[in-house]
């Protein structure tokens, strides 16, 4: 009944790899998992010797495994990188405070410096306060936009060369599906890129070393290594749109495990016709951080919160950007459309 490891043929296999179908024992699985990430890092040329790299750390399984493996490979293969942990505190009671405790423990366990930036400190708004204004619908938009910029700003404070995040194969495939469903060509091209380019001033390149690692393997790696990670659902996200893409993808995976890599491959190979207008990267005229519009999304959402018009930035209101920039008052009709609606 027990299955032997198909690699060493000595020990009992503990998992069947979804990517290859191989049955591996713990040690062979650890080695295969780590070596594949190393292969991803070297073939994509993600890092250069001497660079300082910030690991986006949330306390969850992906960033915990990422921090563990990055430290391990940095030592095993002498990448010559200086690693540190960068966390964002969204200000969600009962969720982020607990997960940050996990990151602080990771800091001790892995002996990596830790920097925490908070929404309250950067934007003056905690996620709890945002949800009070916006309601339970659409609040993920604020959180996602703010977190992305917060990570950039935290990385600039630390003066790092690169940011790496724990996005895994399942995450990337989910994003491909969501962008296909939304018909968002610009994001479809960007979401499969393993690293962002460093063109333009002030943008710190990001990369995803776990891009080809299946979530099942990340979970089992963390479990067998007994890594300390936090796994509670965000209290504001139960209705997040991504949950539907995720459930669909898991159903696909149970039918054919290679579906996840196949979806990523499809996203990578999608081509856009010549002449299709694509967003151009620039900087925000108000805060100076990266933006493809005159006013970046963070500033639009923040202006909406500060004016008591949270729907600003949700939906299409580009015509109002000029007024916002000039700090002009909006007409009563314009304001009514942007006020939160009670359900």
């Amino acid at each position: 009944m027990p299955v032997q490891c198909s690699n060493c043929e000595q020990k009992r296999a503990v998992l069947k790899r979804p990517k290859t179908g191989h049955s591996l024992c713990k040690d062979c699985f650890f080695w295969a998992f780590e070596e594949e990430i190393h292969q991803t890092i070297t073939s994509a040329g993600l890092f250069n010797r001497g660079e300082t790299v910030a690991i986006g750390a949330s306390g969850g399984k992906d960033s915990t495994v990422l921090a563990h493996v990055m430290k391990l490979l940095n030592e095993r293969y002498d990448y010559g990188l200086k690693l540190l942990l960068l966390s964002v505190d969204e200000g969600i009671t009962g969720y982020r405070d607990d997960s940050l405790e996990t990151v602080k423990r990771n800091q001790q366990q892995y002996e990596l410096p830790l920097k925490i930036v908070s929404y309250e400190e950067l934007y003056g708004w905690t996620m709890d306060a945002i949800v009070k204004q916006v309601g339970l619908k659409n609040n993920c938009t604020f959180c996602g936009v703010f977190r992305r910029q917060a990570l950039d700003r935290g990385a600039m404070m630390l003066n790092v060369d690169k940011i790496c995040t724990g996005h895994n194969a399942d995450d990337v495939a989910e994003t491909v599906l969501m962008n296909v469903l939304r018909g968002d060509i610009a994001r479809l091209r960007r979401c499969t890129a393993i690293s962002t380019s460093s063109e333009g001033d002030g943008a710190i390149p990001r990369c995803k070393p776990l891009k080809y690692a299946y979530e099942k393997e990340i979970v089992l790696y963390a479990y067998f290594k007994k890594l300390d990670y936090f796994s509670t659902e965000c209290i504001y996200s139960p209705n997040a749109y991504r949950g539907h893409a995720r459930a669909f993808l898991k159903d696909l995976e149970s039918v054919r495990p290679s579906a996840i890599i196949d979806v990523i491959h499809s996203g990578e190979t999608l081509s856009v016709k010549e002449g299709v207008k694509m967003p151009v990267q620039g900087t925000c005229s108000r805060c100076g951080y990266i933006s493809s519009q005159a006013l970046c999304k963070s500033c639009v959402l923040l202006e909406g919160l500060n004016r008591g018009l949270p729907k600003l930035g949700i939906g299409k209101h580009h015509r109002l950007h000029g007024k916002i920039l000039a700090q002009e008052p909006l007409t009563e009709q314009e304001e009514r459309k942007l006020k939160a609606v009670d359900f």
Partner: protein
Amino acid sequence: MAAPLGLHLEFGGGAELLFDGVKNHHVTLPDQSNPWDMKQLLAWIRGNMLKERPELFMQGDTVRPGILVLINDADWELMGELDYQLQDKDNVVFISTLHGG
């Protein structure tokens, strides 16, 4: 006639929230003429342990895709999945990858 089965169940990755927030459970399955297998265990869990929203854990006769199952620390895909026949003192772990935030 078989004796009652003692099992250790563990829920992680957020799945414990469906089971009173408790990760570790010791359960005793009643005596029955046919050997207990995983399919019957899941039906028993649904009937006896799942207080609310069983659809977050079960899909048809099996666990929802995205929930990993380990039997004695080995992937249940290697052990026969629903057909695995449980033994006394087996350890069954359910880890959810569906929760996120």
